[in-house]
């Protein structure tokens, strides 16, 4: 386990920079992580990020891209416009949750 300093906060991350302890996250940190990824967060981004985070906190696992498209309120086409380098992965990183492991 390594630590990283993002926006002045020290957090535990994995090798790819995903937060390992969701409780170390807050919205300001999300904004900082998004900036590092080259994303300026809009309301639509937040809708996805918050949905992902809530799902992981509630169920313990990240939603598939299919259910993300159906249940986050943001359709798949838009998900890829918002997060071009992979919606589930990038939203998880911004949401301060571990990297999703599903294949779908």
């Amino acid at each position, binding site marked *: 386990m390594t630590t990283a300093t993002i926006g002045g906060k020290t957090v535990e991350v994995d090798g790819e920079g995903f937060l390992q302890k969701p409780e170390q996250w807050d919205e300001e940190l999300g904004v900082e992580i998004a900036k590092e990824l080259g994303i300026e967060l809009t309301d639509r981004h937040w809708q996805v990020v918050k949905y992902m985070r809530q799902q992981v906190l509630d169920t313990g696992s990240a939603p598939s891209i299919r259910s993300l498209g159906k249940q986050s309120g943001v359709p798949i086409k838009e998900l890829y416009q918002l997060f071009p*380098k992979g919606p589930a992965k990038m939203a998880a990183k911004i949401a301060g949750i571990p990297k999703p492991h599903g294949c779908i």
Partner: protein
Amino acid sequence: MTTTMPDGTTEAQQADETITKVSIVVSKGSLDGIYPGLIMANGARMEGIDANLFFTFFGMDAIHQKRHDHIKVATVGNPGLHMMTWLGGVPGMSAMVTHFMEKSMEELDIPPIPEFIEMISDSGAGIYACKASVDMFKLSKDDFVKEVDEIITVGDFYQMAGGGQIIFT
């Protein structure tokens, strides 16, 4: 000690190289022939990797309007099912095995083929049909689902695949 690969790079260097684009050929029309290509294309887009899907021969059933919702598991001549050869040929067996497989895939949130093609297209991947196969089966663009971008030649495909990896399934 570092292991040097035949092209002079080290193993560690090769692992650091990232794939930025894949072009996947789907040539088989059975359920187990189609899904792996779709899963790999979708998985590529999920990682931010550019993806193209090229359907040829019976693989075109996956994008054929009248057939894409009726893709079956082959129960005859499929040793992977571990059933007696004669049993695989019993009427209804293919439908039954397909039904069970679809059920377990739904539990894993793997979509049915029509929805999967739509999902992959929405993710920004290109969907193409092979011109030689289209001509051979006397089909036209109207026979395909709306997600199909174009009917292209093998030459077009190679051009499109330039700079990336090609996966044949």
